[in-house]
């Protein structure tokens, strides 16, 4: 399972398949069709492909109106624009109106790379978590992506998906199924649980588990693909079995996965924990490998924080 496939192609292909099965599926783009490789949907279903140009707020409003007529829109743009620019539109026209709009935010966090800090959505999960009833998720591999896009299409209510666009390997068997709110355990251990989300950080967590193993510590790795509704049971389960937790996100440590996990632990099972993510800084330009080091979202950083929380156990 180590051949690479472009997540953007998987997204586009899945939409085409869905479009063939269900004529209610509609794609909306804001002049980023070429970035998302969704031209294949337009070629197949030109009437159901709506490009609004550089007008994200309008796009989300149109998606809401389409939903009001029974359509199932997927509105796609960079995560920074989806979450920040069109937030009120998504909040009022889509979510508050109880419609079924699927908003897709691409190039999340540091994967915005050479587009730089203005385009680096490091707070989108934080914004989206606060919207009542919204499902917020971030697929970690092509299998997960295919399944969860399908779940989004049949979900009653709005969804927000962070979509990594670039090439990635498969972590899961192609027959693996996924449900919103049901995380996956990719590796089992006893000493610490690494709870991660997204293409970049799930892989960093897996690498961190190997580093920890070479230091005599065994780590559980959880793919928390759905940040909302968060898998409370899994968090409690790994808190009980490991006694220490490190969260790993391509996002500010405020308001996203780390905060969501801390909320559960604080209420249900206080457990030593640490949050790995961007710590209160704006994004900046650079290739992903540079940015991982720059913002400390690496396997080495996860490993170090894991060792710290393990030491705090039992104090």
């Amino acid at each position: 399972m180590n051949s690479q496939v472009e997540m953007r192609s998987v997204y586009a292909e899945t939409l085409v398949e869905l479009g063939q099965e269900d004529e209610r599926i509609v794609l909306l783009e804001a002049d980023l069709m070429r970035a998302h490789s969704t031209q294949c949907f337009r070629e197949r279903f030109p009437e159901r492909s709506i490009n609004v140009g550089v007008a994200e707020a309008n796009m989300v409003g149109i998606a809401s109106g389409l939903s009001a007529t029974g359509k199932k829109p997927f509105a796609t743009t960079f995560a920074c624009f989806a979450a920040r620019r069109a937030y009120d539109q998504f909040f009022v026209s889509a979510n508050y109106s109880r419609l079924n709009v699927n908003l897709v935010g691409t190039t999340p966090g540091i994967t915005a790379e050479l587009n730089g800090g203005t385009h680096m959505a490091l707070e989108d999960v934080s914004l989206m978590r606060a919207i009542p009833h919204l499902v917020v998720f971030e697929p970690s591999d092509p299998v997960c992506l295919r399944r969860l896009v399908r779940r989004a299409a049949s979900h009653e209510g709005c969804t927000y998906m962070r979509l990594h666009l670039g090439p990635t390997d498969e972590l899961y068997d192609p027959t693996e199924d996924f449900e919103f709110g049901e995380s996956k355990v990719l590796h089992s251990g006893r000493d610490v649980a690494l709870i991660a989300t997204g293409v970049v950080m799930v892989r960093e967590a897996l690498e961190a588990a190997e580093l920890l193993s070479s230091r005599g510590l065994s780590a559980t790795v959880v793919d928390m693909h759905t940040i909302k509704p968060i898998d409370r049971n899994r968090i409690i389960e790994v808190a009980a079995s490991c006694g220490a937790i490190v969260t790993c996100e391509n996002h500010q440590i405020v308001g996203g996965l780390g905060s969501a996990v801390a909320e559960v632990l604080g209420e249900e099972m206080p457990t030593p924990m640490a949050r790995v993510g961007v710590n209160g800084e704006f994004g900046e330009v650079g290739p992903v490998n540079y940015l991982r080091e720059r913002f400390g979202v690496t396997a080495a950083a996860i490993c170090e924080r894991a060792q710290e929380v393990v030491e705090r156990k039992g104090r």
Partner: protein
Amino acid sequence: MLDEDARSSLIAKSAQIRAMTLDAIGFLGVGHVGGCLSLVEVLTLLYYRHMHVDPKDPCLRTRDRLVLSKGHAGPTLYSILADRGYFPKEWLHTLNKGGTSLPSHCDCNLTPGIDMTTGSLGQGLSCGIGIALGNRLDGLDSLVYVILGDGECNEGQVWEAAQAAAHYRLNHLIAFTDYNNLQIDGYTHEIMSIEDITAKWVSFGWFVQRCNGHDFQQMDLAVKRAKNERVRPSMIVLDTIKGKGVASAEGQVTSHYMKLDYDSALQAIAQCSGGATDANE
């Protein structure tokens, strides 16, 4: 051309709707008096003469829809919906009370007959476009009406939507601008001028008309022409008076959101029975 019976009937109905709106706001004691009253005639025209709707089937797929993008004018629309039988008239006295089905700003999940939730200005036209596109995908001839405020046209999203509607040749989309010259902080030309509003919509590729927003004859003709338009979305700019029908509110900045106790509302109702007629003489 409206015949005399039809015109008189609309005038009488608009007087009734104006009274019901004042009654609802007055019973609460406060509300968006100005912007509610400026829309009485156009909403009356649409719901009693033009729109294909069924109060017994508010979710009828083939219905014409209306997006009240200036959602704070909800009370006027509620009066019409109540009168048309979407819900009991008694609901009008629950306006903005805790647990109500009639909030200030239109909510499609709370109120039968409301087609879209609005209230955050600038969003409704985009939603109307989405509805029109959805109808087109389903091969329907249904019309989509959108009502904008003039102050609302400050919002950039309105112009994103204006571009898109023309680009997608949404000739089943008919929008109105309630051009009552006032926004919360003052006259529109003082706060943020939207002139030349008519030329703006023309340059965005719309079929644009302008008329007196309290004159049924003029408005009816404009709507008929809009319905006959085969290519472009339509914009009908309505010259209106904010607070129309209540002497103390007409043209007043403070009428956007003002206290109105029930006694004053009843007095205003008694005085404004002729409020709709002067434009129609």
